[in-house]
């Protein structure tokens, strides 16, 4: 949605494709031609697109790793503290700190923390939430593939962009302030 308070409104160009191979090839060519790729919109995860638009790998794996480590430390601390320090109970003569028996719960909580925090951060990072009002390109959840370029400066050449996308079977190219 265009924001009227912005002094300088950034314009975007969107190209529509009918299949993923054209989109990937078109995105790579646009980047090599010096255009700034804003984003692409696809009905499914298109492999090779991240490389074509030079999107760096997500750091969410590190978040999952750290969350798992936190879960592991929490689980071990909880078990050792409750079983050996806070209220030690003699269960069948086993040692109060029966460490090997704490491994199963420690493993489960590692997985639980890692999984839940990774998905929570994913939703937060993508601003996905229950009452999201984001707009969607028509047919992009069906069979349309869209590449959006950012018209970063005045030198942006729309005719050049149209010609480039035509070479990759683009079915339409439109301009606008902000699409989605």
């Amino acid at each position, binding site marked *: 949605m265009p924001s009227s308070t912005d002094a300088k409104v950034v314009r975007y160009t969107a190209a529509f494709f009918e299949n993923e191979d054209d989109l990937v090839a078109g995105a790579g060519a646009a980047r090599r031609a010096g255009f700034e790729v804003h984003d692409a919109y696809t009905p499914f995860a298109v492999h090779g697109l991240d490389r074509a638009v030079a999107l760096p790998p997500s750091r969410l794996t590190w978040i999952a790793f750290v969350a798992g480590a936190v879960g592991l430390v929490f689980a071990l601390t909880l078990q050792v503290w409750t079983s050996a320090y806070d209220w030690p109970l003699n269960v069948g003569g086993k040692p109060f700190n029966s460490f090997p028996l704490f491994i199963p*719960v420690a493993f489960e909580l590692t997985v639980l923390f890692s999984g839940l925090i990774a998905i929570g951060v994913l939703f937060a990072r993508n601003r996905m939430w229950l009452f999201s009002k984001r707009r969607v390109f028509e047919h992009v959840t069906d069979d349309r593939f869209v590449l959006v370029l950012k018209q970063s400066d005045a030198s942006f050449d729309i005719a050049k962009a149209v010609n480039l996308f035509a070479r990759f079977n683009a079915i339409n190219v439109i301009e606008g302030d902000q699409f*989605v």
Partner: protein
Amino acid sequence: MAVAVEQLAIASDELHVIDVAHPVYSKLRHPLIEGNKSNADVTRDICHLLEPKPGIGWWLSLSASLVLLAVGIVATTYTVTTGIGTWGLNKTVGWAFDITNFVFWIGIGHAGTFISAILFLFNQKWRTSVNRSAEAMTLIAVMCAGLFPIIHMGRPWLFYWVLPYPNTRGTLWVNFRSPLLWDFFAISTYFTISAVFWYLGLVPDLATARDRTKSKLRRVLYRVMSLGWNGSNRTWSRYETVYTVLAALATPLVLSVHSIVSFDFATSLIPGWHSTIFPPYFVAGAVFSGFAMVMTLMILVRKLMHLEDYITPQHLENMCKVALLTGSIVGLAYITEIFTGLYSGNPNEIFVIINRSLGPYAWAYWIMFGCNALVSQLFWIKKLRTWIPAIFVLSILINVGMWFERFVIIVTSLHRDFLPSSWAMYAPSITEVGLLVGSFGLFFTAFLIFLRLFPVISINEVKGVLNYAKQH
């Protein structure tokens, strides 16, 4: 603001346009989806299943399932208001039907995670046609399983006492050395991770359904549940990362869950339970029974919902191969158990083995042995692996066999213990049978609702494999 489209037409003349309508198929790969579908065809085929009002067949199935569920509700109410004395348990056999059903349902769940996580990590593209419904089956099966221990507690409303939370009993903590507690952590983690994994896979498809549906109520439901999904590549990139992370987490998780279930038995000193073979034996059995249930359901779903192009005989054959492998591991475990028991030199171990196969519950033992170890071997024959009525019958036999496996392990190890004066027989009471019937009612009710509410096949993942066999 459309830019002159005329320019496009001129420019595209210079191109070598590949004819998309007639793709060239590779000789090495058979297409995963039949019928030369386009992306739009996939959207239409799967979403179309949700849009018209449900037919008479669906209502009849739902009514039958609700009747079964009602039986379960009556049995549960009777158990909770009267007590565990309504079951057929006695002093010798203190664990029987209830835990059999619990282990059975947990096992069923394992195939869903196996398909969604392990096959994903192994890059098995055929999983895309079956993973959605297999994961739904997992969630429902784990719910059914979870009910049994909760009902067995006698005061189910106090089930949260197994959580380690600060309490007014001096803070008396739970016993972290007990496999039953590990079980609670394993199953609740398993359920949670399976649920978020399933939901994450569902989000892009809910967006597809949202953008198509004509019904107001459904649009609100899908809009809220799809979290504003717009197919952005940045979103997809992060999504794929987290999906892979969850698959990597779910893989050891699924192996741990049934290992921990087997610890409930293996850490005790009962002959027939006290065995180091239990964790791998249980995990293989779980995947085996789960695949049998997936095959039963998928054969029905593909027929009744006309999904023959999506769930092809090739998918079923692949699942038969997994069942053959895991069934053979289970058969090997049976034989190993006999060998280690007889070779142990321990009279109690030897007695349990002989009593199992020749004692009063021998009929159950041989149902188990026949339906699991022997029936699975029939999948060596390609004709049977590819003949759908045969797969259907064999998959039901395997389900029966795997239920009996748990019954045999539990009851035959207990009913003749160390002291012959306390030997006893066990037979389930009508209430216990009612609980089992009710769990099937819950399973089918929930599965039927799933079929009508959510895309039954992963639309976005299937679109990603349409080009699987096309030559580039």
